[in-house]
């Protein structure tokens, strides 16, 4: 095991997959030479080690970056492209939503689009709503796309390696704060299949379903509640599409109580999907109404007290748990 930040773990995954398959190439804004030169960043050192043929710095042109991925993928290359921040996905979205996600279907399954779109995301760095806007529910709503949102460095590495080997388009969303939270990463070769949630903490009283950075909030809340002998079971979805219903439902059947926690805003958020699945398939096991803990329905504000108010906290999660106990 090696302690790495998530950016470093992603960097390893990219290196390993580029070495393994000469068809893997990277493109994006500032992924070769960027304005920040930190070893904690996912693409650090890749230009130097793999050269400009495979690590392509692009102009500020998200539609072209995404289209590059679609076109190169249908030719059998394995593009891994970066959209700098999640809100800029809107500029790339035509190529991803109308094209990457649909063209295989439109070809009757004859053409394939094995591509990965990496995006940085997350509130907490004071840049406001045009840089911080978690839009995972948008992409999860598009059949044809797979959606990954890892919470730990080890997961990020294993999931990204699978994503790069996938025959389908994958949107891979990285919370930037996690770049600076070190965690153990296995040194040997491994992959984590898409579509497998992981129980990050066993518990008996309440199931908390979450993903990405909010796992840290859930784990802290679980520590605190354990002192009062309340045991939270934390299910980290890791991939939203495909959704690991089995793990989710098994946990809810065990505890009989559910809180879904995500940083994204509430209305139309992915918690609604999780809730619907549980209501449809495990209604009879619920001992109490389920709860959602999410960002409020506002754009992410800049001012520090306002931004703190936006981001779901341990306190809010604990309150929600207490409401249904």
């Amino acid at each position, binding site marked *: 095991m090696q302690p790495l930040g998530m950016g470093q773990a992603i960097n390893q995954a990219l290196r390993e997959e580029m070495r393994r398959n000469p068809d893997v190439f990277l493109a994006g*804004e*500032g992924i070769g*030479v*960027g*304005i*920040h*030169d930190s070893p904690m960043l996912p693409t650090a050192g890749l230009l130097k080690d793999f050269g400009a043929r495979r690590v392509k*710095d*692009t*102009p*500020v*042109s*998200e*539609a*072209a970056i995404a289209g590059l991925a679609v076109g190169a993928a249908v030719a059998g290359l394995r593009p891994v492209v970066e959209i700098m921040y999640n*809100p*800029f996905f*809107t*500029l790339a979205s035509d190529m991803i939503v109308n094209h990457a996600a649909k063209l295989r279907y439109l070809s009757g399954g004859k053409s394939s689009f094995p591509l990965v779109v990496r995006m940085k995301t997350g509130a907490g*760095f*004071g*840049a*406001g709503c*045009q*840089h911080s806007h978690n839009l995972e529910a948008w992409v999860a709503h598009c059949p044809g796309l797979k959606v990954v949102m890892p919470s730990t460095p080890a997961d990020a590495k294993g999931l990204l390696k699978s994503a790069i080997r996938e025959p389908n388009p994958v949107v891979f969303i990285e919370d930037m704060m996690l770049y600076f939270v070190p965690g153990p990463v296995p040194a040997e070769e491994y992959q984590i299949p898409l579509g497998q949630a992981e129980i990050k903490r066993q518990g008996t009283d309440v199931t908390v379903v979450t993903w990405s950075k909010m796992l840290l909030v859930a784990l802290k809340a679980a520590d605190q509640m354990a002192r009062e002998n309340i045991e939270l079971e934390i299910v980290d979805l890791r991939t939203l599409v495909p959704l690991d219903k089995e793990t989710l439902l098994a946990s809810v059947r065990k505890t009989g109580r559910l809180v879904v926690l995500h940083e994204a805003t509430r209305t139309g958020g992915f918690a609604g999907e999780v809730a619907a699945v549980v209501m449809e398939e495990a209604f009879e096991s619920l001992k109490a109404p389920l709860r959602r803990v999410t960002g*409020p*329905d*506002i*754009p992410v*504000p*800049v*001012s*520090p*007290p*306002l*931004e*703190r*108010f*936006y981001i779901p906290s341990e306190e809010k999660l604990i309150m929600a748990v207490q409401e249904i106990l």
Partner: protein
Amino acid sequence: MQISKSKKLEILWSLLLSRRFEEALTELCKIEGKIPGMMILCTGQEAVGAGVCAALQPEDVIITNHRSHSHLLAKGADPKALMAEIYGKRTGCNKGKSGTLHLAVPEVNAPCTTTVVGGGPPIAVGRAFAQQYREEKSVTVCFIGDGATNEGSFHEALNLASLWALPVIFVCENNLYAGAQRYEEHTKVPNIAERAAGYAMPGVVVDGNDALAVYTSACEARGRAVAGEGPTLIEYKTYRWRGHGESDLQLYQPQEEIAAWQAMCPIPKLRGDMLAQGLISVDELREMEHRIDAMVQEAIRFAEESPYPEPHEALEDVYA
């Protein structure tokens, strides 16, 4: 074109105010926890904002971007309200919702600012459409960087503006970099202004460090626009002295290049000419600098003493 003494004084004032305001921000950013978020400065490029806005009337509109301080100050925005917003305080022009990146000052006809690169041009088209629709004799200016001209939105906006002869001026501040990319690493055409030809609109290249040349070219473009002759693309060649943002170590910007451009600073050029021509005396200049200094200090004091918004205020202003 004859430029009046008062116009020159106005431009000099804007140049000095923006420079002083941003020099203060550079220092404030070094204090941990003082200023939230990124800090993107236009130090060295101030002649563009100062010269263009001097060519505008109060009813003219500007749509600006992430590097907006000099544009907004030159358009007349209150430094106190800007500074408080940059601090994230409740008294800021956007109540702490925006911070430095998307400062909107509708009071001076800067109704919306976007940090999404390429977001401005289509909005400017719409704003100029409203001016044409209401038969107003005013224009909309859209400030963008060189990098932004590689977004599809820029090209759609230019075509539509030209097709409908809208009163818009696309002002491209070519500061030689888009993020860490030097101009020739992101764009093949030697001058951004040449892109205008593809949309049958005039495209001009102007020295962006010569505030008076900036002013003159903006006046011409404004004249065409209000006469119903349509949009202009003006490319101002300039340079950003600082990094993309204040946390950028500028490893990709050669020191000699920065020094060479600093030697072409727009301030001594205009100041020197005005002193030589007797348009301002050394004493008057010193007095102007003192007033600007006091204004910036007052803005900082105001921001420091202002309260942060209460957390629940985050819920306000989403809808009308």
